[in-house]
């Protein structure tokens, strides 16, 4: 009978449909989970950011300060010429927070001994890229603002 002869292709066609159904089901479970796992990105500050009074006092006291700038950590410090500078504080090697070493006028990462000059260029150690620079401006009223270098130029 023709039904029996066609039984096999029909079965494999149904298997194929079932396979697609199973894949679709898996995708409909996995996709929302993957989207759920990734957190929403934090809103980056649109323009320059002003240091608070507390941050200014700390900068005057310790000559360097690490602060948040959107999703960045930024190190603001006073170089030997008393100019303010700012760099991304996240080491380009493995993401530790760097620090300013005034005695050696270098930016140093304690995790894997990476060293950068005050412009963020790699001097020694394993970091593969320079630290991103931020523009710092001191207003006439003493307020200090920082902004990404690109936005300033």
């Amino acid at each position, binding site marked *: 009978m023709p039904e029996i002869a066609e039984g096999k292709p029909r079965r494999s066609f149904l298997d194929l449909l079932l396979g697609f159904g199973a894949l679709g089901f898996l995708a409909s479970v996995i996709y929302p989970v993957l989207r759920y796992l*990734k957190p929403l990105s934090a809103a980056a500050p649109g323009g320059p950011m002003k240091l608070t009074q507390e941050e200014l006092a700390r900068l005057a006291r310790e000559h360097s300060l690490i602060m948040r700038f959107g999703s960045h950590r930024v190190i603001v410090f006073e170089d030997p010429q008393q100019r303010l500078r700012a760099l991304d504080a996240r080491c380009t*090697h493995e*993401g530790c927070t760097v620090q300013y070493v005034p005695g050696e006028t270098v930016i140093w990462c*304690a995790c894997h001994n990476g060293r950068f000059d005050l412009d963020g260029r790699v001097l020694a150690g*394993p970091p593969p890229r320079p630290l991103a620079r931020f523009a710092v401006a001191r207003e006439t009223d003493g307020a200090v603002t920082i902004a990404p270098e690109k936005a300033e130029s």
Partner: protein
Amino acid sequence: MSAFGWLDRRYGLSPLVEFMRHKEVPVGKHSLFWYYLGGTTLFFFGVQVATGALLLLYYQAGEQTSYESIRYLTTKVPFGWLVRSMHCWSAHLMIVSLILHMFSTAMLKAYRPPRELTWVTGFVLLTLALGFGFSGYLLPWNELAFFATAVGTDSVKAVPGIGDWLLQVLRGGPDVSINTLHRFFGLHVVVLPLLTVGVVGAHLLMIQRQGMALPVGAEQPRRGMRFFPDFFLRDVLLWLLCLILLAILAVFLPYGPGVPGVEWELGKKANPLAPAYPGIKPEWYFLWVYQLLKEFPPHFLGMEGPQAALLLVTVLLGCWAALPWIDRRAQRDQPSPLISDAGAAAAVFLAFLTLKAWDIGGGAAHGGQPDPNLVARACSFWTLGLTALATAVRALRFGHRHFAFTAATALQIALHGLAGLSYLAAGGIALLALLPAVALQSRARPEAKP
């Protein structure tokens, strides 16, 4: 009616009891000691579950509560310090036991057919154990934990294609924050334990079905030791000794031995805006990766240094997981002395990097930076000395005759530590010297015992 009879009639327990009654451990010329190490690892895992459950009664995950609740637990709660100390010590001892178990299994070539999947599930358990260590480290939310997690999670960005996505998923944001702690807490107390119980179950089931492996070439002994009660009682005795050791360590050294990577003083609370402090180190079993990250230059073979370092780590671990398929001789139940030697060389490789990560001999215990050349020299003396000793024992006691991998690793250490070459240049030269030696030796028929 006995309780057993009641259950037996309903669930047919008799075949299971019969199976356990006839279960035997093969007794031959080989030492039985290595058969106990899986059990001790399981014992320490049991301690982790029990002490972990107790810690959960007081621990509160949160920016204002994680650090504070651990401080309250260790300073105010009766015996809180003991529970935490047991949990930490047992975690380290579990990793020690697991590593010994894994190395002894590798040396006995117990991974050869038909036990390949037992080896692979064991490898998965190693990664789960490392995941437990890594995720648990962050939970007290102190300074040390914060940077160890910053470095550890940052390394996933090296994964091609999905690195950034993975980093964000792991951290719950672009940076390590309290969101990371919540994710790690979930992993540490729910996801990893469930996975571990499942994989341990599979691992044990495979061992029950296949029995203990014999060394390569050993004849199946006519009689073995009965598992119940003879072997099991020995197991329990060893667990008791482990518990005593754990209790002594937990009571007398409640914050660890004070060695970097083996300490759990609470220290300062994590401050995401504080710089990393000098001498920061991950836990001891990650030190070799930490040191490797330091040894790689900013760029290597067209990759960024950290990416190249982590690729090397992945390849090495991948080879280790695939050992049952790499070791062709063991597949045919023949001795594979080159693989045994590669295992010994792996231990030398790990030991040197770990010692170096501890800055041994750098002359800067307090303040200041250790001198990398002095560290390399001191560590190479120690490692070469220990390697010479271990090689003599292997040659005299176990009749080993193949040392190409160990010799190449020793050559790298000598060139780096004593001749002052960079670690990678020394490694390149050692690799070039190794290739012809391995080609020659793998052609020759192995005459030595594995």
